[in-house]
């Protein structure tokens, strides 16, 4: 954050306007990323500190959702449970792993049906330890979004996140889980409920 950087005053900072979470700007654009890294490293030659240099390139926002629909129907009428939804996505997830030769799933150590079962049990009132639940949910989120990136018409990252929150049983489960965690006597459950379960941009979906 520019405002935080202005308070901390590091000797040298490069200000970029890219989406939070993408400090190098554009995935799979090595030339663009290299220019950003080089611009940051070139600041080492300057001694007029503290300085914040403005990076001159910007990445346009891709927020046009028109004309994109999830090509496989995951509406609640089509799958009757979270477990079924997770199973339905497995083939797309496998395709993503094959395409990218990598996955970012694997924080919790659980396989995805087990992670889904943990969420289902939590929804039924059997709340697991907050850290275990958070790790399982992080893995599931990565699994869903990586799977969606391998759909025949994958849209954009923004449309896939909208799909996740609009259409999936997992998102419904997370929204339903939030008040249960918020009412828990365990402060770690309440941190999860209030800060690290539902993104700030999606909290309007909570009842």
């Amino acid at each position, binding site marked *: 954050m520019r405002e935080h950087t202005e308070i901390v005053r590091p000797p040298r900072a490069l200000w970029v306007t890219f989406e939070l*979470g*993408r400090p190098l700007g554009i*995935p799979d654009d090595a030339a663009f990323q290299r220019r950003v890294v080089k611009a940051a490293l070139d600041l080492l030659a300057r001694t007029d500190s503290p300085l914040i240099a403005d990076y001159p390139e910007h990445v346009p926002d891709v927020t046009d959702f028109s004309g994109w629909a999830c090509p496989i129907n995951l509406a609640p009428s089509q799958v009757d449970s979270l477990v079924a939804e997770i199973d339905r996505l497995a083939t797309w997830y496998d395709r993503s792993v094959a395409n990218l030769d990598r996955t970012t799933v694997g924080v919790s150590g659980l396989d995805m049906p087990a992670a889904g079962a943990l969420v289902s049990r939590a929804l039924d009132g059997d709340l697991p330890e907050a850290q275990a639940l958070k*790790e399982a949910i992080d893995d599931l989120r990565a699994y869903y979004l990586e799977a969606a990136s391998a759909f025949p018409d994958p849209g954009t990252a923004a449309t896939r996140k909208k799909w996740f929150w609009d259409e999936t049983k997992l998102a419904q489960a997370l929204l339903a889980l939030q008040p249960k965690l918020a009412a828990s006597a365990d402060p770690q459950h309440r941190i999860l409920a209030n800060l690290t379960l*539902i993104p700030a941009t999606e909290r309007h979906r909570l009842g």
Partner: protein
Amino acid sequence: MVKRLSDMPEVEANHLRRIECPTYDDTPALPGKPLAERRVAIISTAGLHKRGDRPFRPGDGSYRVIPAETQGNELVMSHISVNFDRTGFQQDVNTAFPIDRLRELAADNTVGSMAAVHYSFMGAFPPAAAEPHAQHLAGLLKADKVDAVLLVPV
């Protein structure tokens, strides 16, 4: 590499506005060697680590070690925050952790060399929780003869 609060959705900006920032009396930028003679390490605050390493926990100010030879498919992210994009990292590790770019810059002699080891913290920690770890890390960087660090927040 930083962003501006006014560019963000108000709910996110309000959350980030409340974050505690340390202040320093003096933050000098000292002159040093040319870039082509420097040994560079990456320090991320994206909550990255190798699959199987300890995931980050709320308030965790410690770091995880990412050796230079680590492949992209070995890295996962366990940052507690859900308020930043992860799909860029899912698609291409370099979107958040430019290890391949640094490797290229070292190969074409734009930078002198790459550190043997790189590091990740998880950004959402109270500054005091990280200080002892940061002090220790400074010693490790010196031992690796690192004389430039690319700090990459998310």
